């Protein structure tokens, strides 16, 4: 009986997320801020170095990451860097309020179904994927602290320089 219980506990842990070195799963989602059914695809950013950031309004570290990602995008955008943020909030209004408090200029898409974070198998919030120009994931960044910015910038510079 106990074994049976333990087995059930272990069951969901089997699903591992996408790792560095794998191709980024395709993504096609509606833009959050547009208010229209405009769809944004990851494929449209092919040829650019992309930081794909999964976030939610209730996630504390996301509030730290947004200004830093905005800064990185401003600085490295001309060299071919782009940020694509995927919101996973259940309530859209929460996400919009967050964006009013922490405004960003990079595209923000929304997945209310949880299909995209599931296909990426994200281990926690926030999780970022650094994707190179050919669509391969180079770095999986979980969580976010203020001090993470410098290391992330170095990684982006490395991938940009290839």
């Amino acid at each position: 009986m106990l074994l049976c219980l333990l087995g059930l506990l272990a069951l969901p842990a089997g699903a591992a997320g996408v790792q560095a070195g794998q191709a980024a799963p395709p993504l096609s989602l509606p833009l959050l801020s547009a208010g229209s059914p405009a769809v944004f695809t990851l494929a449209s950013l092919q040829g650019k170095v992309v930081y794909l950031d999964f976030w939610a309004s209730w996630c504390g570290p996301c509030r730290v990451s947004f200004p830093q990602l905005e800064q990185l995008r401003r600085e490295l955008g001309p060299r071919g860097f782009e940020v694509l943020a995927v919101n996973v909030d259940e309530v859209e209004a929460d996400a919009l309020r967050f964006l009013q408090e922490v405004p960003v200029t990079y595209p923000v898409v929304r997945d209310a179904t949880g299909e995209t974070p599931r296909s990426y198998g994200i281990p926690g919030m926030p999780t970022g994927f650094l994707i190179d120009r050919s669509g391969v994931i180079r770095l999986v960044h979980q969580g976010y602290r203020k001090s993470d910015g410098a290391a992330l910038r170095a990684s982006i510079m490395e991938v940009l320089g290839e």
Partner: protein
Amino acid sequence: MKQLAIYLFVLLCLSGCETVQPWERGTLAKREMQWQPDPMETSLQAQVNSSKEASSGGQGAAGGGCGCN
């Protein structure tokens, strides 16, 4: 037979168990879902408690030792 019925019942109950995925924790992240919804209130309570009980510590917060409370 009775034992089997109990096992089956427990298994049936377990099918209601669900792992909450990292991106589904919006409700769990709400203030009213925290063990300590208000850190300031918690700290005040700890202060009052340690003062009234003439003991300090054990609250998971730094404090005590100076004998000034």
